[in-house]
């Protein structure tokens, strides 16, 4: 990357600025953190390691949780690249892989838990690493899906003329991947990565501390710290945990996401008036270290380039045989995948045979209860987010100020403040049956708010002016202008919020609180309970029901609605 700013700056760069020192310090800290994490990972496996509720352990726990989140993000990124690319570019793959992804996305984190934990603990019976990997994979399942969807849809919309240029320039597969596919998807991937990190934190407490049958698994980390604090009803520790979590979120936001967002307009076509400012990026781009790094990178590439590239083969059209081979390999792969899926399905059905009629009846009752809660939570959330979101979106200055705050609030894992809500509602004599709706609301309202803001800020000013000139009444303005205009984005918000609410019911309908177990009838409670008691057949059935509920609601309600939204209510002509 060329450092354009070097030419513009009038002052000669100092030998070392404070930023350089900071960067160097960060590097040292990073190396130390790596060593510490590695140490923890190779520690002998303890079923219930001691979790301390003292302040001095908190920084280390936060580091552990952060590193799990970062590693999980790395896995998510890798998965996204492989799965998204295959889905978009291998002929025929899309037909299978897209529905599979849709179903995977609807499976709650506890659905993956027993498989991950039992399998990996089996694999590493004497070391913590199995449990660590299981924990990372659970965080991964909270992060990955929207990134994969985003990458896939970006790949699908790469402009054909850029593809033509890539072909004419005989770009190698790697060059094409980096210069075209990845660069084109960069902006979407970035925004979805931010959402993904937040999604991963949501189930942090579950991912680090859980009971599976007679085993109590705990890993040192912020999540297990919080769940212990909640279990014991230790208010001071809870507050500390919340502060540590907030600190971590702010840290990641300032050090990673803000700089990346400030850098990302490079990948868009329009000259942006993006005012997103990042102090780190501002300093970094002037810093000597980055300049040296970018120059040495260029130097390395040049050195590499000195070697004369062998002339390319004349014909680049694959031979008929190669096409045949490729087609057969992809067929083979798809059928292998099919066999694995079929095998899993058969085993799953076998597991379901163990359920009694009573079990099924209970599960369906729970499903109905949770469904009602989910719908109520989304409706309640809409009640306040729609008016507020429209207001914020309408005034750019407000959204400029409020957007970062809302983003931060949204990425804070709501389960960590559930005890406060539940506690205060209990004081008014309201049980978990009702208060769990509040908890679902806390977890999912942000998705709706974000989307309403985006929708309302996209309403052209002329339309607001027309509504004023035509003397629209208050009601007319909502009916004729605002609701239709925000409808497509509101719908996106609803879909995400509803899927999220189903998953959040796992932690909202069942919790350990001040030494006792609070629970209410619901599918989420059923899943949590089955996990704790090690009743895998019930767990399998409940997770299956939840996946079916989410997917069929998406197909039967949301999809027709979004089709309608796209054909009727889009603002661009």
């Amino acid at each position, binding site marked *: 990357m*060329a450092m*354009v700013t070097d030419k513009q700056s009038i002052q000669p760069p100092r030998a070392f600025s404070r930023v350089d020192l900071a960067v160097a310090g960060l590097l040292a800290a990073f190396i130390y953190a790596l060593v510490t994490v590695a140490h923890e990972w190779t520690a002998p496996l303890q079923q219930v390691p001691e979790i301390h509720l003292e302040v001095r352990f908190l920084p280390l726990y936060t580091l552990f949780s952060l590193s799990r989140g970062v590693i999980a993000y790395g896995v998510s990124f890798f998965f996204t690249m492989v799965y998204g690319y295959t889905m978009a570019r291998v002929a025929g793959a899309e037909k299978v892989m897209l529905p599979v992804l849709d179903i995977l996305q609807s499976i709650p984190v506890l659905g993956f838990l027993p498989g991950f934990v039992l399998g990996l603990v089996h694999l590493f019976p004497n070391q913590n690493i199995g449990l660590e990997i299981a924990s990372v994979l659970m965080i991964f399942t909270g992060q990955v899906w929207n990134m994969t969807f985003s990458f896939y849809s970006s790949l699908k919309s790469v*402009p054909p*003329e*850029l593809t*033509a*240029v890539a*072909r*004419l*320039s*005989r*770009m*190698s597969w790697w*060059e094409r991947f980096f*210069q*075209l596919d990845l*660069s084109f998807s*960069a902006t979407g991937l970035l925004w979805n990565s931010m959402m993904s990190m937040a999604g991963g934190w949501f189930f942090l407490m579950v991912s680090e501390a859980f009971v599976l049958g007679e085993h109590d698994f705990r890993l040192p980390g912020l999540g297990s710290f919080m769940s212990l604090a909640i279990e014991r009803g230790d208010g001071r520790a809870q507050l500390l945990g919340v502060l540590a979590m907030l600190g971590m979120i702010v840290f990641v936001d300032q050090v990673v996401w803000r700089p990346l967002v400030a850098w990302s307009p*490079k*990948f*868009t*076509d*329009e*000259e942006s008036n993006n005012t997103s400012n990042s102090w780190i990026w501002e300093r970094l781009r002037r810093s000597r270290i980055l300049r040296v790094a970018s120059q040495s990178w260029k130097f390395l590439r*040049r050195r590499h*380039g*000195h070697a*004369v*590239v*062998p*002339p*390319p083969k*004349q*014909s*680049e*059209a694959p031979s008929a045989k190669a096409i045949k081979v490729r087609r057969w390999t992809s067929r083979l792969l798809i059928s292998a995948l099919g066999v694995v899926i079929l095998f899993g399905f058969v085993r799953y059905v076998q597991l379901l045979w163990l359920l009694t009629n009573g079990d099924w009846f209970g599960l369906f009752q729970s499903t109905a209860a949770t469904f009602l809660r989910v719908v109520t939570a989304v409706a309640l959330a809409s009640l306040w987010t729609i008016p507020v979101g429209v207001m914020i979106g309408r005034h750019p200055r407000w959204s400029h100020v409020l957007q970062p705050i809302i983003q931060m609030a949204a990425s804070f894992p709501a389960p960590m403040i559930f005890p406060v809500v539940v506690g205060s509602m209990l004081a008014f004599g309201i049980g978990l049956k009702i208060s769990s709706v509040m908890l679902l609301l806390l977890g999912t309202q942000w998705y709706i708010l974000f989307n309403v803001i985006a929708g309302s800020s996209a309403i052209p000013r002329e339309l607001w002016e027309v509504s004023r000139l035509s003397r629209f009444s208050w009601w007319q303005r909502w009916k004729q202008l605002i609701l239709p205009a925000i409808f497509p984005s509101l719908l996106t918000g609803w879909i995400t919020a509803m899927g999220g609410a189903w998953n959040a019911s796992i932690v909202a309908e069942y919790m350990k609180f001040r030494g006792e177990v609070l629970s209410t009838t619901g599918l989420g409670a059923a899943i949590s309970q089955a996990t704790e008691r090690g009743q895998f057949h019930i767990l399998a059935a409940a997770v299956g029901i939840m996946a079916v509920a989410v997917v069929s609601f998406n197909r039967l309600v949301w999809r027709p609605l979004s089709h*309608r939204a796209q*054909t*009727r209510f889009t603002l661009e002509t």
Partner: protein
Amino acid sequence: MTTPLLEIQNVFQSFPGAGGGSVEILHDISLEIREHEVVAIMGPSGCGKSTLLRAIIGLEPPTSGQILYRGKVQTGLNPSTALVFQNFALFPWLTVQENVSVGLSHLPLTTIEREKRVAEVIDAVGLGGSEEAYPKELSGGMKQRVGLARALAVQPEILCMDEPFSALDVLTSETLRNEVIDIYTNKTSPVNTILMVTHSISEGVFMATRLVVMGAHPGIIRAVFDNPLPYPRDEHHPDFIALIDKLHALITQAALPTELAAVEGGGAGKLPIQSIPIISLSSVIGLLEVLENEGSLEFFELSRQVHVELHQLLLVVKAGELFGWVTTPGGRVDMTAEGRAFLAADINARKQLFNVTLRRLFIFDLIVQALIKSARNEVDETVILKQLTQLFPHERPQRILQTVVAWARYAELFKFNGLRRVFHGLEKPAASVLSHK
């Protein structure tokens, strides 16, 4: 005689169309391109001129037929070509310099050579100083200079350009046209042949040494002309104007055959199976407005007055002829009594007149009959689309349908529900003005 640079032999190209069928874009194209030529491929939209260019480069291999480069059958991309795109096709995340060197990475060059070459072409197209700019910082003209530099960097023997100036404003495209000619006439430049696609006749005559005129539905080569005018060309020179007139006459004559009138009398009861020009009704009414005073205009005079691209104007005139509002005897456009009556009418009377007119047209009659036959007074879009695909295999049925809907809505002949995508009749089926017995 030496072997030509490129030989295009009996090239056919079809793409899958709506409803499982295929649309034939190119029909039996044969053409030779020799060294030291600027060949302009011209024709109306949808004649497959871009498709032909892509087949020559090797981006889309033809369905059948072959393309020879210096006597050898060409498979895959032709390494001696480079392409300049209509909408520039620059990578937004790469600087000017990086965009230009994109095409060089596969060539056996050392880094020093590569950098030198990039610097040279950037200077040659007048981008010196902007090496580190990103495309979004540049104006349209500068962007296309980057596109040109990227193509020139590979030192192509054949420089291909797909409507390279049509996304630019008039003055900028004028400048760039001259610069491209300078590159071609410059003895030191490696470009020895230019192959360009354009829809503008004057652009073709200004730049090309040979003009290839294509016709649409399906794309065929209608005529090939030599253009011996010396560079630099003067647009006001009588020879230049004469050549443009010659091309106009050719295209007009091909597009407006005079036998159309004969069909009307011939078919008693049966309507002639005929497609419709894809054109908005208001431009046809606009044509009547222009003709109102004189009543009749020479076609060239008309095209000069209205500043509309010739191919577009031809479509408008064809539509007017279809409606019976104008006739075109021998290069003139005459307004008919029917046209005058329509123009004089008020909006409601116009709708009635147009309603009668549309019922005489095959496609509209097809839909009206289908509606009469249907029990619920409704016909699904797909039914009509399928029939259109069968009847007019060289045209895009979706675009015909859009025009049909727009005209029918004006005439209040039948309605179309854009959400459910069905045609439906009016509430009370208007008594058939013309009986179809």
